[in-house]
């Protein structure tokens, strides 16, 4: 029951295994699991507690642990950037991950984002290791920059540039995320509904969205289809909404919309 005791037990076990010839690298998953679990202080303590066999993995873990306690000072960002650039010099998964994280420092962790350099690093990674997960994730982040970073207010050009990326993203869930964001940017910049619907439907086809977004997606396809005159598709998605999201406070609104749709189909009145 006592997590504090368990933590010390983990550290003790780590120290024991650290003394074995084969055990040194085994501590890294424990450190990394602490980071995944939002326990950055404990991860830093565990990482500092002993040697790690693989120097590159250790250096990357150090960078990850440091990034787990944001915001970072400018000096720290510079130090981490240099370390990651060294690690990124390779063709393996670790190098790809380091490369990706270097771009993230440019985009998210500096006090002033450097959109151009972040974009360049994402593009470079996608050229170098196009199939690697970090390159694929980088394309999603590149898409977000293309959609929203400061620059000319040319919505058509922004959406077009971002829309060129999904065909290059082979990992379905990442492709879904970018389709969704292109659709939502399209709504914000008042792009034609048919164009928005294409991206929403592409995201829905992949599925698996988390949080309120899954519910919003089904609702948007239903309502925008109705406004676009695609009544059969609107009905299908409204009905699906009621089936899948039985606890939503929007259910009354949906039922009213279905009633209006019924009237529309009978030619009685326009919703």
């Amino acid at each position, binding site marked *: 029951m006592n997590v504090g005791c368990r933590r010390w037990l983990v550290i003790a076990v780590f120290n024991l295994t650290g003394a074995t010839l084969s055990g040194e690298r085994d501590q*890294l998953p424990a450190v990394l699991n602490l*980071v995944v679990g*939002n326990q950055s202080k404990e991860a830093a303590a565990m990482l500092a507690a002993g040697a790690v066999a693989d120097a590159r993995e250790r250096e990357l873990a150090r960078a990850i642990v440091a990034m787990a306690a944001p915001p970072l000072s400018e000096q720290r960002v510079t130090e981490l950037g240099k370390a990651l650039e060294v690690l990124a010099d390779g063709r393996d998964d670790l190098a790809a991950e380091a490369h990706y994280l270097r771009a993230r420092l440019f985009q998210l*962790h500096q006090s002033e984002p450097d959109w151009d350099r972040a974009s360049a690093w994402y593009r470079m990674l996608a050229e170098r290791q196009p199939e690697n997960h970090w390159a694929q994730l980088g394309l999603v982040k590149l898409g977000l920059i293309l959609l929203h970073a400061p620059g000319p207010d040319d919505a058509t050009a922004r959406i077009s540039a971002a829309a060129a990326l999904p065909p290059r993203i082979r990992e379905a869930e990442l492709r879904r995320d970018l389709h969704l964001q292109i659709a939502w940017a399209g709504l914000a910049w008042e792009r034609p509904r048919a164009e928005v619907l294409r991206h929403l439907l592409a995201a829905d086809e992949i599925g698996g969205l*988390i949080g309120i977004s899954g519910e919003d997606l089904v609702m948007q396809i239903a309502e925008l289809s109705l406004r676009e005159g695609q009544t059969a598709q609107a009905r299908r998605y409204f009905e699906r909404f009621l089936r899948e999201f039985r*606890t939503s406070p*929007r259910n009354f609104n949906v039922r*009213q919309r279905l009633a209006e749709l019924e009237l529309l189909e009978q030619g009685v009145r326009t919703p």
Partner: protein
Amino acid sequence: MTIRVAHWQTEVGPGDGFAAVIRRYEELNPGVRVVQMIIPPRVYRQWLRSNLAGDKAPEIVEFGVWLEGMTDVPVRYFESLNHHLAKPNPYNRGTVLATDPWLKTFEDELYEQKLNSPEPGQYYAITLTRSSLRFFCNRDLLRAVTGSEAAPRTLEELRGVARQLAEFNRSSGADARLLAGSADNAIAMMNLYIAGSTTRLSRDLDREGLLALYPRQVSWRYLTGEWSFRHPAMRAALELVAEIHAQMKPGYQQVGRDEAMREFMRGAAVFFFAGTWEATSLRRLAGFPIDVFRCPQATADDPVVGPHVLGPFADGNNMTGFGLYLNKRSSAKTVAVDFMQFLTSREGNELFARHSGWAPSVREVPITDDIRAFLTPEDGYSYVAPYLSAGGNARALFRRNLHLLAGPAGGVDRLAAGLDAGMREAAMADLEAERKVAWLSALPLDARIAAAGACLRLGGGDAAGDAATRSRLEAAQNQSEARALLIAAQLRMATPLERALTEP
């Protein structure tokens, strides 16, 4: 081992409910002591912030996303409960909920968390109760005024009661009010009636096709000039606000909800508009019988707001509340989760409901007739549409300007002008606050995603679990990050737009 649970529910009822649950839990777990800490609402934010920052906060704390100036707190200090919520609650063994994942045992499947989680897809809280907004009625006074105990069902019927009350006061020398008044319950009522009487406008502003207006949409649509407080629908809604204002005692803006409750308890007001969380206090302390009425509705033929309503509006919903969060830095998280599970098991939540008089949050928990009146069927539009409360700045703006209704020069036009004078700045500040929360949510996820990816590379663990975790975190970050970027882009656009509208 001792764990602490802190909340701000000082009303009569919830403290008793907690005490009953704690007694039973300590019987089942003799090695554990649970301490209930009831912190007055006025100091709760400061108390919580300082204790979290000093690593001295209780294991379990009540929190709400609407608490002003606290939007960064969940991601920084609270632990996601997803892992636990995916599995059955062990305290439901032997009940009809035994095999349901904990999440599915809540009436609304923790919808508020789904809606407002600072990290999409993550559930940070469990909830204890369901609530709605109601008119609490002094039955004796209503009968004396109208000769009937019947609830007014429409705004026109409510206006009728107001007219009868004026006559009653004239003929009897009494000075009763239609509505017990304070800034808190007046503004809550005004919020509800503005949202409920502008549903046509809300549907028009919903360009995203969500059949709802989230706070960020309300702020953004204001900045694009698509609505203002001089819009015909909004102006009509402010007329309604003025009617509410006129039915409360002068100076109500200067007093808090306790004063309104005292006014009602003295028999000086026919109705007290409040959340059902006040019901236990009212029922236990009042010296007269109290009825609980649904909120009178604006109808299509209403002379003030009729043209602007789509139909009846929701005066409550299925959503559960009284959110309890797990302190990420606690050394007793396992026990704390165990207590949270008991608290929201069928047995624990029934104990809480029975002793607090509050509606349960958990399915299959028996409900008494008293509590049944608090539940709202699915019978009204709900566009959310927080025109007066899209963020802390908009809320403060309304509070600062409400007095413009009063006095010889006061009125709806003056209030609308006062609100419009400050709303651009408020909307921009509220959007910036939301952008910052989204950015703060995205920031620490880089490390967590990278760590999950490194775990996958190193192998030897739960590869499928690591992959699922990484995928979930990536999806959450993509959403938060995109939202932060989109709002930043909107703010960049709004700045020149504002200049264009204000410069000669």
